[in-house]
């Protein structure tokens, strides 16, 4: 089963939920894998430090023009929808950071003057935090495209795992979609504030567009107002767990400790969340395969 933890707004507690969930699951004897797909700012390893056993670079294909063969016909510039290749009178410029690696220029060049070369944009790290199998993606600093790194992380998903937990990036655009799209259940972590609710509504729209089943965990549930609960009730969205704005939890998080390990009562709460999550995910899987 694959569970993604996502949110519209940043900083609502995605990583807290993903790491604590993985810990209670592995302690119950499940085979657990945690995929850190927040590749712009990956934080899982701060809470579940792991020794990196191997790394794999993430590389994209970008065109390189053989100027000796090029006749300056200009076709490559015409076929590129991303303005990543610009033929000038004296040379052909390639803007690698704009390139989507579609291969159109290379394939369609009448002189076959274009070849593709590999360009690194990030890295995947693989290791173990105790019995939790960890895979983390890191977008290189200065690079723009997170989705290919996220794809590379997901390629390491273990089909034999009982539970794969995905820590998704914040937002509702392409990186989030890439992270959650094959999940059996998406847990949306939200705060009961105007910003939190506004961004949750966007995330809900995204999940509906993807036809992914989802449910909510309300974090810092006692700050703000009651609008989040009212919205979920109105929309028929289940709130799986409410976590209070607990100074002890905030303190543990600030030090990189897991609440289930150091704050009394949280192991029980997250065990309850795990049971609920597994049940919802299974219901969905059964409904789809039937």
């Amino acid at each position: 089963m694959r569970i993604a933890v996502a949110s519209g707004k940043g900083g609502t507690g995605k990583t807290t939920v993903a790491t604590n969930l993985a810990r209670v699951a592995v302690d119950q004897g499940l085979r657990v894998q945690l995929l850190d797909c927040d590749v712009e700012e990956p934080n899982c390893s701060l809470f579940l430090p792991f020794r990196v056993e191997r790394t794999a670079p993430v590389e994209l294909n970008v065109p390189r023009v053989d100027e000796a063969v090029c006749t300056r016909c200009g076709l490559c510039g015409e076929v590129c929808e991303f303005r990543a290749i610009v033929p000038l009178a004296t040379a052909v410029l390639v803007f690698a950071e704009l390139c989507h690696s579609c291969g159109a220029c290379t394939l369609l060049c009448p002189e076959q003057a274009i070849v593709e070369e590999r360009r690194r944009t990030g890295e995947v790290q693989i290791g173990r935090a105790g019995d939790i199998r960890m895979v983390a993606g890191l977008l290189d600093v200065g690079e723009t495209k997170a989705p290919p790194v996220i794809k590379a992380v997901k390629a390491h998903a273990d089909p034999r795992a009982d539970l794969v937990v995905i820590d998704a990036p914040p937002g509702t655009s392409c990186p989030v979609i890439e992270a959650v799209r094959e999940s059996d259940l998406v847990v949306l972590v939200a705060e009961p504030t105007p910003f939190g609710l506004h961004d949750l509504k966007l995330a809900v729209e995204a999940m509906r567009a993807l036809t992914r089943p989802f449910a909510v965990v309300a974090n810092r549930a006692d700050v703000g107002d009651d609008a989040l609960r009212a919205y979920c009730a109105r929309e028929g969205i289940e709130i799986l767990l409410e976590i209070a704005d607990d100074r002890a939890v905030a303190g543990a998080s600030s030090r990189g400790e897991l609440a289930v390990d150091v704050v009394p009562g949280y192991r029980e709460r997250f065990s309850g969340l795990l049971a609920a999550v597994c049940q919802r995910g299974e219901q969905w899987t059964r409904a789809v395969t039937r």
Partner: protein
Amino acid sequence: MDSGGDAVRELVVISGKGGTGKTSVTAAFARFASQKVLADCDVDAADLHLVLAPRSGERHEFSGRKRAVLDAARCTSCGVCVEHCRFTALQLDPPRVDPLDCEGCGLCARLCPVGAVRLSPVVSGVWAVDDTAWGPLVHAQLGVAEDNSGKLVSLVRQEARRVAKERGLGTILVDGAPGIGCPVIASLTGSSLVLVVTEPTVAGRHDLGRVVGVVRHFRLPFAVCVNKTDLNPEVAAGVRAQAREAGALFVSTIRYDRAVTRAMVAGGSVVDEEWTRESGGAAEDMRMLWARTERELDRLAGEDEDKGE
């Protein structure tokens, strides 16, 4: 080029880690700064309008890209498109394009021997210039599950500059996106000063390091603000040292204060008069932060002017 004195100054507030208080800080600055345009570049999840009570004006559609559209009646299922699509966006049985996978490169349309595929523009967001009590607000919302947030961010900044020029406003305050990728880079390139808002946690510290790496990559002057500083004073001290070492122009702090959230729930800012009275220090800290930020903006503009002469 404009001389430094006439040039519009652009302050960009970013964070690396999400939820550290970018928008609350920007909303406070909106109240302190004079003669400015506000620009919300967190187009994935734009929230600034929630605390600025804008009067809604005209909405504009944004089309940042195209997508393949397949005419199943014409398709002969020859498979050329499927063979060459790098994004596995096409399938034959039945012939269709997966809108989530298609990146709009158009290779399929060029290769199709019977003209069954064409590229069509996608409306991938909306943007608007609205008036608020604190000045014009340029903001946008990316369509759900859409791509190309970088282009929409660039559009918002471009519009903010146009409005600043037209109305003779000297400062643009930009609320940026979390992370270090495409929308963040689009929101900070070419700005006058970057303010990074972080928090005293291991994650805040880690993410500060990565986002400062991006800021330095583009050689931009930056300052750091540690929000909710008393959450963990020990980590806060470490974050401040790290920021200074990285070359921050200054490092400021804001105290943890529940009035910040209460003000937001009421659609306002902690620096508004009615909330300042209840504030446990954040309002005062934000006022200080703006004073230091404005001083740096003035100083940097002066430097540019010297260089220009």
